[in-house]
């Protein structure tokens, strides 16, 4: 199946100018309860060996591309 490590990806095309969405994102992305990831060794927020965030930031088209590419690997 997939790798045991989740991947986090930020696309340069992320461009959002809707204030209401940005403010919503500031609440749902930066705050809230966090359940530790599967393998987590971190010092403050520098992740040396693991990844615990299952979040990917990109435009929808890129997301579809990446996810389908990964499935064929």
């Amino acid at each position, binding site marked *: 199946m997939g790798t045991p490590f*989740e991947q986090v990806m930020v696309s340069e095309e992320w461009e959002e100018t809707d204030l209401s969405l940005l403010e919503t994102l500031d609440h749902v992305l930066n705050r809230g309860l966090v359940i530790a990831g599967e393998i987590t060794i971190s010092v403050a927020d520098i992740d040396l060996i693991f990844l615990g965030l299952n979040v990917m930031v990109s435009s929808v088209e890129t997301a579809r591309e990446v996810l389908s590419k990964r499935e064929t690997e």
Partner: protein
Amino acid sequence: MKLYAYCLASGIDTLYEPVQGISAARVRLLKTEDLGVLVSDFDADTVPVTRENALAHAAVVRSVLDKTTPLPFRFGTLVNELQLRNYISTHKDAIDTKLKHVSECVEMSVKIIRDVSADSQREPLEKYQDNEQGIGAMFLAEKRREIIGDERRAAQAAELSAWLRESLHGLIRDEQVTVRPGEKLVLSAAFLVEMVKFGPYREKVAQICAERPDLHFLLSGPWPPYSFAGLELEFKSQFGVS
């Protein structure tokens, strides 16, 4: 098959209306101990941050706010059922305390932008600056000026934070205030406000915004208590091995 977890809540037996979550999956209530968790099925490894998903997450968490105040999970919380149940039973006491702390409350946000054009004003030249100085001494003189500027801005930001909190004293149950002295977005605050004090809170905020025409405000809410859900639990996970 993984679960996408939206929030924890007590006092919910069933979901009264069907709710759609991430990737249009149906949201259901998973019960464990005496709590309910809103979850939906999710079968990929990552959750794309898209408009639809962000709004779906927010909508699901909000959907229970009419009945009870939930503890929202962060966007992108993917777990399997066992992990979820373990997490809850391990942290049961802290969760119960937190639920009690946020009960009957909503979160209101205040963000403040200040004018930074005044920053380019340089501190007056003093005795440390003269034409006969070497490069090293000039470097230190410049640093001194920068440091004084930083200290001034930090004091201003702290004063702003104190002003805001004192003005709202008595109307808020809890607060989370972040200041970033060097930046335009100098202050970002979340307040836990009891629902019965919502009206007076809004009036007071409107009043104090008018007192400071030199500042730019962004007010938003009511939100479920995103900023008051995670704290100590998260702090621990930031420093620990798990």
